[in-house]
């Protein structure tokens, strides 16, 4: 590691804020990209299952 201690790592020779904000925002953005479709999938499947059950109840002779 090029940094001797945590303080140096956070400070980064005065460039700390720029570097850490860049990485922080990027991690949040990537995490959102990952989580959003996973949540959407759960909601979708729940929705489809609910509709399928409703249709099955309405006309039980089908399916």
């Amino acid at each position, binding site marked *: 590691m090029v940094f001797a201690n945590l303080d140096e790592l956070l400070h980064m020779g005065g460039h700390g804020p720029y570097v850490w904000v860049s990485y922080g925002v*990027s991690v949040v953005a990537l995490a959102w990209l990952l989580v959003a479709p996973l949540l959407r999938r759960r909601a979708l499947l729940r929705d489809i299952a609910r509709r399928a059950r409703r249709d099955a109840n309405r006309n039980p002779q089908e399916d």
Partner: protein
Amino acid sequence: MWAYLERLWHRLGSPRHFYDLAGWWLPWLAVSSLLLLGVGITWGLLFAPPDYQQGHSFRIIYIHVPAASLALTGYFAMAVAGVVVLVWRMKMAEVVLQSIAVPGAVMCALALFTGALWGKPTWGTYWFWDARITSMLILLFLYLGVMALGSAIASPVLAARATAVLAIVGAVNIPIIKYSVEWWNTLHQPATFKLTEKPAMAPEMYWPLLVCALGFYLFFAFVVVLRVRNAVLEREAGARWVRELAGEGR
């Protein structure tokens, strides 16, 4: 070999087969992308040496360059999908086109944002209206345009064709972004990576960059596949296989 590829192409063209096949890729994409991103970012942030002129602010490159590169590649992929939509009327291409828009826009925004934070300590300003930065901002607007157009038109077929046209027309911006630093005087420096030349960067700095870039690309593919699968479920919501799948989920 050719026959196999043709079969694969036709299978990928069918929503159901795409859904199943892509399901196989998901775990590989997830593991490899998160692993590479973890290694690349730790390496770049903690172990790569500082730059002789810029000091530690240059570490932003490990986010900035992969994000910018993906913003361009993603848009190019969208334009290719757009050609397939208009010429072959392939359903899956419509789905792929729409699924790239959001991750692509996020990458483009990240490139602009990290670029601004890098610009302040190095150039002395967050923003500068040169050809590179301006054309990148236009790319973000094109992405937003594709997203807006896709959701503004109710008919899926019409929406797909309209977004395909916008994606293809906007692709003209791609070579402009890429070569802006060579065609005009810009504040932005020329490309770090060129296909034809050895990078003008020390190896202990560009290896982590390569790892990060590969991680970003795999992550992008992962996210796009997740979105494509969701879109398939949504479009085929009435199909029996989707209903059975949803039924299994509980």
